[in-house]
């Protein structure tokens, strides 16, 4: 499935059945991001399909 990574403004093609598996494959720390599925916030347990629109939003700010 196609994943949008907001921090780097890029799309990646990844196969994963859950958000947890997706983040593990992308080596992204879950404490630093929010994940939306079809524009709704979801937890790491959420199941994914190829039809879903997935975005990964970095929550880091400040200096």
């Amino acid at each position, binding site marked *: 499935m196609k994943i949008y990574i907001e921090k780097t403004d890029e799309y990646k093609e990844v196969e994963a059945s859950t958000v947890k598996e997706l983040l593990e494959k992308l080596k992204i*720390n879950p404490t630093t991001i929010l994940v939306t599925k079809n524009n709704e*916030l979801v937890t790491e347990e959420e199941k994914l399909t190829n039809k879903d629109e997935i975005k990964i939003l970095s*929550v*880091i*700010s*400040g*200096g």
Partner: protein
Amino acid sequence: MVCKNCREKPVIKLTNSNISLCKNCYIKYFEKKVKKTISDYKLIEKNDNIAIACSGGKDSTVLLYLIKKIIKGRKDIKITALAIDEGIHNYRDKSLEFLKAFCKKHEIELKIFSYKEEFSKTLDEILKTYKGIPCSICGVLRRYLLNKKSKELEATKLATGHNLDDESQSIIMNMFKNNIKMSARLGPITGIIKDERFIPRIKPLYFLTEKEVATYAFLKGFMDKFNECPNSPYSYRGYVRDMLNSLESKYPGTKHAIITSFLEIMPLLKNHYKKDQDAIKSCSLCNEPCSQEICKTCQYIENVIKA
């Protein structure tokens, strides 16, 4: 996995308690926690005039919204949004546009002060010649202006959007740099003793993680992306932040544990460093409080900005 309270679909799993919450229950949880922090630590009192440090980022936007909501109907309390325009092209200009619109929508008075007007140069211009860590000079200049402008506004408190991540990073940074004295100035309300040269800083988001604040901002529809300052990755804080996030991922609850254990020793630290606070001088150039003859801001103005 369902919401612990109502069995709806969850939007977040709290790392500290392993509890999952749906959108409505999470918003209630978040707001209750902010109110409890304000109440437990007496962050807002009768007749307060609160300057709220705002940047247009998620933390200060959430803070602004919630303070306005919490004091609704209180005619004795005044709030003003106070923003500092450092002059960071393509970052601060955008966030301040958002902040202006947000304040207009929520009918909050906004005051913006800039490095360009106050120090004659923007941060971008300063960094053309200054080769140190950007956050070092920027942090000093920003804190100086926030304190100075809060006093000019006759504020009784300066509210900041510091969250649990910020505070746990500060505690660890002070420890790693053998600067534990600085930690005596931390906590939900800052300061060791009352000193009219310092406006007490209050941190209503103290017990909420960066991810929790972002979740609230997203669910309330304030913003759907969270921009990082372009200078932030070069800071020492950036390294400590990454280290703590890595630990948090492997050992959930690490950041909460740092805060909880710090709060246990905080009264001892404040008491221990009371004498040092008494020795705080006033800068011979600008009269702002400092530990040396000339404050760090005036040193930067003379040695970096005017150089």
